[in-house]
């Protein structure tokens, strides 16, 4: 077996982190994307820009601010401490919070595109048939935006799996808690254990390729919605 128990633990942890992050992002991202798609508010620009920030910011910036704000002297850290939760860096929960910020645009933007592509018409028709807003959302919007949700989930999951800088900066490299695959690869390379690094890194290449393959071949059959 070329993978050590530490490698396997890192893989399991990464999958858990990516799954939980994707789930949370679908819950948080859907209302944000819906609002961004429908609103005429002047806040649309600023909110959209904030959501997209992680696309352009280096992970070191995000990681640094997370470390400082979630630390014992930071505002978030003081809040979590007052709740008796301690501080978030060096914990799995901290990684989840970091990943939610980091992968946010990869979930919100496909959803927003999908919602925008639906247009006014189906919603108006639903309204004339006396569907309430919730009914409209679940019976009309969700089915029509399904491809958008698929894209958003795949991208959110894959992007979290590929996260490195943020995890490195707030994780503390604790086996089974914050040592993800990308950090484990970094360790192997640093320790000049190239054989182990190859196994994990090669695995990441294959994983990423097949995720993108699934994404792009899926798109071919469902034109229209991003």
């Amino acid at each position, binding site marked *: 077996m070329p993978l050590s128990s530490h490698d396997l633990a890192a893989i399991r942890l990464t999958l858990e982190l990516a799954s939980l992050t994707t789930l949370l992002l679908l819950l948080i991202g859907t209302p944000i994307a819906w609002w961004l798609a429908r609103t005429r508010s002047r806040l649309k620009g600023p909110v959209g820009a904030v959501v997209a920030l992680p696309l352009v910011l280096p992970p070191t910036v995000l990681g640094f601010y997370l470390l400082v704000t979630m630390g014992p*002297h930071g505002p978030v850290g003081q809040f979590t401490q007052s709740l008796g939760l301690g501080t978030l860096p060096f914990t799995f929960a901290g990684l989840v919070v970091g990943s939610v910020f980091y992968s946010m645009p990869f979930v919100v933007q496909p959803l927003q595109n999908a919602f925008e592509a639906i247009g006014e018409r189906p919603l108006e028709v639903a309204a004339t048939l006396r569907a309430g807003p919730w009914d409209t959302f679940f019976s009309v919007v969700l089915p029509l935006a399904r491809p958008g949700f698929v894209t958003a989930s795949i991208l959110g999951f894959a992007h979290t799996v590929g996260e490195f800088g943020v995890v490195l900066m707030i994780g503390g*490299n604790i086996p089974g808690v914050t040592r993800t695959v990308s950090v484990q690869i970094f360790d192997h390379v640093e*320790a000049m254990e190239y054989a182990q690094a190859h196994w994990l890194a090669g695995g990441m290449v294959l994983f990423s390729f097949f995720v993108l393959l699934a994404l792009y071949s899926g798109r071919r059959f469902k034109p229209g919605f991003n």
Partner: protein
Amino acid sequence: MNNLSRLFVALGAGLLACSAQAAEVTIAVAANFTAPIKEIAEAFEKETGHKVVTSLGPTGGLYTQIKNGAPFEIFLAADDSTPAKLESEGEIAPGSRFTYAIGKLVLWSPQEGYVDEQGEVLQKNDFKHLSIANPKTAPYGLAATQVLDRLGLSESVRAKLVEGGNITQAYQFVATGNAELGFVALSQVYKDGKITGGSAWMVPDDMYEPIRQDAVILKKGADNPAAQALVDYLKGPQAAKVITAYGYEN
């Protein structure tokens, strides 16, 4: 020859003379030596007119870059095993390996009075996080685990250890208060003969293997006189003064 062409000849000769004297040397430096090398390079540039281009990084990462054709001419590592490995692989100018600094380990907290001068705070064990550098990849991390072993505390603090990817990050965890204390390089918290802030336990030398930091001239720099000049400068008294002022032994 008219005046104009004389001027060009003079200019050309001047340029040639300059390029012969002032060369450029590209160096790769382990992250823990960031501050001293800056000071040393500036003084060296002033004295010789050569230019020093510095790349900072973790020792293992720099090694990988060197093996893959990075344009470095001198390598200042954070350990002695990586330069030795490069030597055995024929990547260095023969006979150029030497120890430029010996690193010192310190247990440090930014809080005044948190770490006592005997390090008994470790025995009390009422902290949540103890930050160290990754012992697998960073010499200071390995030294930290040796100290914990010597104190018989490896088991009791295991669950509280957080690891930085390198010594800079281990320091960052402590400096931001996320870990109450940590084993860091003395050079990170030491300037002009004293600790710059917080509280610290200077770990006695006999509790860990000496952290020898070796330097080498790489093959790419073998024929660059500026590289040899910088190495000579590093071995000289001015550099030694800077190196000890930052808490290394020389």
